């Protein structure tokens, strides 16, 4: 292992959303490209590469207008993007940044004091023979506008609310008129980055209807009610996992790959899309994604050799086996993504929501997370702390001092002190509210006398480090008089539970959910956090509702000095604690077959098997 590898390696945690951009500074991430260090041999055309999916994180949503319950890396960056290309592709090899070469559109042109944005398309075609046109972008926009509440990336006041109008003056041009001036970087990285052109063949409301042609008039998406009907139809089709590979809908693709088969367990077999008109046409004849329920299951297959996995990962608990894996024909290297890690707390839970709304309670919880010890003990050093929503890794210029320093270091006594000074007292080992009320030394609004600090926390199963972290937190919390009831669930179970909700809804009974990977900034590549912390945002899973946060986020979208606004935002969020921050582990310690070349580990976790090839 090279020193560079040692500094980066590890982990298996999954980010909830797929990655993308960062900034120019984020491009500083340089991962050891072990694949290129192996001796060169003859290149093979064809062959099969297999990629190991994260534990319990199998793709389960194909429609690229994704709701929050399915907004995950395994759906967006490692599944949808293979078939349906976004307007802008992010990641230049292993470096961060927008990749205009691999994008469907040319760089956007901002005019009219940054209130008008013009996008021109390159020549791409759908697999049904139709050209990718501006009408396809309009189709996506129409669906979004009519169904924004169902979109995980929706931020009230932002996309599409801030778009006054959009039009397609010709087949390759789309013009967006904005309601005010916006920071072009933010608009490109967080708004245009969200768009995925959709084929007009999808513009229908039932499978029995013939696929419409782009030239057809009065297609249903052109009216709000029609767009709702089309969305409902496509969403329903997307929940029918067993039909993914055979569906006349999903078989129309413009990306380098199309599905040959798909199982409900998440095994996806892709074959090259012969109509793909973009760069980097696939060299492999087949690309396979394999599902695993636990990291141990994946590692057993990896370790057994035989080529069942071309591109897998080593769990942090099995790092001692690195030599064995290397001798079995793998290069081992880290995959670091641009994100931060946290677990979400439900402010709208009718029982414990009022408790979570107390800042001192959240501060007490944060005091019980021993990030340095978790990183050194459970993650073997392959992680960085998360002290705010702005990531520390890969190295970037976004994070300021408030994101680099721990405002709430591990301290059980500090946690207890915060609680006892606000009207809580240990009764039978559990902090119990003795002084209800809204005074400075009282429990706070909505908390009645006798209520206890008892919370349910569900975490990702199948990942040892996450289990260890949660057990450590449970013990620390118990020392402070907070009872944590732990349970575990698969990645998809956890992210489905952790959905935005209203207190009156039955689905709002969850209290704390930890899917293990926090947030990967993609397609919201500029880390302003609007998607996850703005009031009413589609991925504001915990229902955080804070006017100050909204103001600070809005400032990052429009301020002339974007970094100053971002500093104000992260400084506030590091103290407001809308979530419980925890260490951000490297995305994974990859084990890549020495026979598989051309692999680049995208900073936003996008898979690019079209660039891979096998050697003899």
């Amino acid at each position, binding site marked *: 292992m090279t020193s560079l590898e040692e500094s980066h390696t590890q982990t298996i945690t999954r980010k909830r959303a797929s990655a993308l951009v960062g900034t120019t500074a984020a491009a500083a991430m340089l991962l050891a490209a072990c694949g290129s260090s192996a001796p060169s041999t003859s290149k093979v055309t064809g062959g099969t590469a297999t990629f190991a999916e994260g534990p319990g994180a199998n793709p389960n949503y194909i429609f690229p207008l994704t709701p929050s319950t399915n907004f995950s890396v395994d759906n967006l960056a490692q599944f949808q993007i293979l078939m349906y290309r976004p307007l802008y592709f992010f990641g230049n090899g292993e470096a961060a940044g927008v990749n205009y070469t691999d994008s469907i559109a040319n760089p956007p042109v901002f005019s009219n004091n940054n209130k008008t944005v013009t996008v021109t398309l390159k020549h791409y075609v759908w697999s049904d023979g139709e050209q990718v046109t501006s009408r396809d972008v309009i189709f996506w926009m129409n669906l979004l506008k009519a169904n924004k509440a169902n979109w995980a990336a929706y931020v009230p006041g932002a996309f599409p609310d801030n778009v006054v109008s959009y039009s397609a003056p010709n087949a390759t041009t789309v013009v967006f008129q904005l309601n005010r001036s916006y920071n072009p970087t933010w608009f490109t990285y967080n708004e245009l980055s969200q768009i995925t052109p959709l084929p007009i063949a999808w513009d229908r409301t039932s499978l029995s209807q013939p696929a419409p042609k782009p030239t057809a008039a009065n297609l249903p998406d052109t009216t709000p009610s029609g767009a709702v009907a089309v969305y409902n139809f496509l969403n329903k089709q997307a929940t029918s996992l067993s039909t993914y590979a055979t569906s006349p809908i999903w078989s129309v693709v413009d990306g380098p790959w199309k599905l040959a088969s798909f199982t409900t367990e998440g095994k996806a077999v892709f074959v090259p899309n012969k109509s793909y008109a973009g760069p980097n046409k696939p060299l492999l004849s087949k690309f396979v994604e394999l599902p695993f329920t636990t990291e141990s299951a994946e590692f057993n297959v990896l370790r057994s050799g035989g080529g069942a996995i071309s591109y897998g990962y080593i769990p942090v608990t099995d790092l001692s086996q690195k030599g064995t894996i290397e001798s079995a024909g793998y290069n081992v290297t880290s995959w670091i993504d641009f994100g931060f890690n946290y677990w979400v707390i439900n402010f709208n839970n009718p029982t414990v929501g009022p408790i979570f709304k107390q800042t001192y309670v959240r501060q007490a919880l944060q005091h019980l997370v021993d990030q340095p010890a978790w990183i050194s003990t459970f993650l073997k050093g392959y992680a960085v702390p998360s002290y705010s929503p702005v990531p520390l890794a890969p190295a970037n210029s976004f994070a300021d001092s408030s994101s680099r320093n721990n405002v709430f270091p591990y301290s059980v006594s500090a946690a207890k002190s915060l609680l006892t000074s606000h009207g809580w007292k240990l009764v039978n080992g559990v902090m119990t509210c003795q002084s209800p009320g809204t005074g400075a030394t009282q429990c706070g609004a909505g908390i009645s006398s006798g209520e206890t600090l008892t919370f349910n926390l569900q975490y990702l199963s199948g990942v040892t480090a996450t289990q260890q972290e949660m*057990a450590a937190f449970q013990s620390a919390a118990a020392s402070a008089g907070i009872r944590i009831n732990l349970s575990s669930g698969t990645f998809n179970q956890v992210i489905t539970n952790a959905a935005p909700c209203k207190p009156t809804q039955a689905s709002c009974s969850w209290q704390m959910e930890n899917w293990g990977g926090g947030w990967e900034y993609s397609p919201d590549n500029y880390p302003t956090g609007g998607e996850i912390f703005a009031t009413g945002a589609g991925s504001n899973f915990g229902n955080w509702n804070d006017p100050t946060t909204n103001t600070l986020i809005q400032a990052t979208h429009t301020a002339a000095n974007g970094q100053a606004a971002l500093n104000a935002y992260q400084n506030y969020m590091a103290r407001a604690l809308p979530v419980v921050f925890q260490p951000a582990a490297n995305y994974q310690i990859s084990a890549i077959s020495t026979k598989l070349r051309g692999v680049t580990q995208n900073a936003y976790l996008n898979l690019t098997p079209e660039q891979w090839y096998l050697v003899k």
Partner: protein
Amino acid sequence: MSIAESLNPDLEGGAVAGASPAGGEVASAYTGSAWRLTMRSFFDNRLGLIGLVMLLLLLLFSFAAPFVYHSNTLVANYSINLPPGPGHPLGTDGNGRDILGRLMLGGQISLIIGIASAIITTIIGTLWGAIAGFFGGAVDTVMMRIVDVLLAIPTIFILLYLQTIYHPTIALLIGTISSVSWLTAARLVRGETLSLRAREYVKAVRVMGGSRWRIVYRHIIPNTIGVVVVQATFTVANAILILATLGFLGFGLEPPAADWGSMLSGGVNYIYDGYWWLIYPAGLLIVLTVLSFNFIGDALRDALEVRLQRR
């Protein structure tokens, strides 16, 4: 009351029907009470004796040893996966907790759940089987078809389904395991009842005007005790295995509670690291416990089954 009396309250004296003396040694046993005969037969069974000793040791290990061996069994810390050594005779687990202490804790839970499940299973199975067997006809058909249907559903499916919709607790585990274990007991008791209901003393009670419920309660059920007790011991072993399976699959008790199956599962994560202390002790205890109950069950069956007794 002797066991013979308890088996058949209408029987006067302590002789076991059908038994006859054969040889001096057996004659001596025959002259004793049925209880002494049973006990002697049991203790003559070496495997049964070994099983009993093993069980007593396991009970001491699980319930008495924690009073003299104090350790951290619940609080997670950063001394993870320490090998056996001073302070931790069997090392620590992936959460820094003392394995020996957690084995004791897991033993308590395993035995409590196993025995409680066996009791519930025995009560339900005995009543169900006795009623079905004695009343016969449509009652028997309906009751036993219910049993057949439930037996046709894969046990693991029922267990996992129940565990996923409810938070696992000791009570839930007992209920869950009992819900799938009483079926076998019901079948056995029903078969025994079919035989018993044709006996003369049952007919005599009928002639004397005894109610059907009295016959079931006073005569049928007591006479199935032998079958029931033997089945109960196997049920304990089976329940402990089910618990271990659930724990191994991640559906055991919620952390930081300990059960042997979950401990075994946690150890498997480190199987390539050579952390044997995470795997062997828990696995060994599961084997020993199940084995002890099986030995005891076999010996009890031999002792209680008249046809297998020496004459």
